């Protein structure tokens, strides 16, 4: 099955809200899909990768675009998913 690419807008949200939005969004997305998270809080640069490591998702990349960060991850298997 082809994986899909999704976008999550977490701009202007301050941590941990971007992680909370991502956590909720991931629970609706099949494993293997990609998510691009758009953030403005610089703390997401460390928080989202940490959250991915803890919960079994793969960090694909972090791109800085002016005052924004685009953090891309691949959704992991059910093992690490939020209940």
């Amino acid at each position, binding site marked *: 099955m082809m994986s899909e690419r999704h976008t999550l807008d977490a701009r202007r949200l*301050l*941590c941990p809200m971007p992680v909370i939005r991502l*956590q909720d969004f991931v629970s609706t997305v099949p494993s293997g899909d990609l998510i691009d998270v758009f953030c403005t809080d*610089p703390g997401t640069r460390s928080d989202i990768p*940490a*959250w991915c490591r803890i*919960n079994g998702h793969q960090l694909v990349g972090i791109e800085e675009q002016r005052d924004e960060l685009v953090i891309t991850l691949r959704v992991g298997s059910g093992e690490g998913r939020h*209940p």
Partner: protein
Amino acid sequence: MTTLIKIAPMRAKEQKAVALISGGLDSMLAARIVLEQGVHVEGINLFTGFCVEGHTHAIRKKDRQREKRNNALWVAEQLGIKLHFIDAVDAYKDVVINPKHGYGKNLNPCLDCKSFMARIAYQWMLANGFDFIVTGEVLNQRPMSQRRRCLPVIAVDSGAGDRLLRPLCAKHLPATLPEREGWVDREQLHAFHGRSRKPQLALAASFGIEDYAQPAGGCCFLTDSSYSNKLRDLWRARGDRNYELDDIMLLKVGRHLRPRNNFKLIIGREEGENRFLEGYRERFTHMRALSHSGPLALIDGQVDENDLILAARLTARFSQGRDAKSVSVQVNECQGDSRRLNVVPLSSKQVPREWYL
């Protein structure tokens, strides 16, 4: 002939605990103590909107380059446990607005807050098939919520009852269900009490924990007198003890001045705050000096022409044109209309101390 049947030993069900992880040392140690006993532990962290979690650092330009981490996530990673964030902003309002046990020195409803967090953990425990709750509370460490008479109140009010285990001070308290059932060994729990941090530091050292968050000034904005004054002012001005997330976030940002009962100004103190306030331009009438560089100012409240002129003079006061004879100020209504006002900046003597919130 006798047949020998080999029976595999019964494997006890793995007990599962949910730990309230704040990101500080105490909750980290509490979770670690239970992990050491072979219990499966997962963490939850509640976001109430009042948490001091580097928001001002994320907003202010000078702090944006500083390395920042979410301490709860960091703790979970160090412990090797999962962490589940819970958005508790709406549910928490009732705790702040109607605390059953009242406030502390400021608008901090500490006892109700502890009960609320234990209640959310208890609900999470039930929903996810876990067995008990772990917190990092220490007897008599805090004046309001951790006194001997308060700890049972938290267990009762939250509904968690004796499924609430406090590994750091368990030996001062009656045995809980996890201790009585042998899910954890009470002998390996602790008897910490009081404000001294020495026992925690020694225990951390014994676990090889060298790095941990040491929050300065507490972990909740509601314990801060300046922040609490701004929240009280917000309620008084609106005639309603309520708030939205944006309201309480804005109280963390900028200078707040109330020159009239019907409006206040929120004025950015530096570039990062101005950028953050720009995100609210569609919700608030706002203004900024045009003829001189200066901050963005949001107007919270209903204003007439005289109020707008006063607000423009105040905005000019905080611009580089504060000593100029006239400053041109761009006024943008939240509906989209904009115009220019030429005003004389207020002098420092014309800005009474009591305008500052």
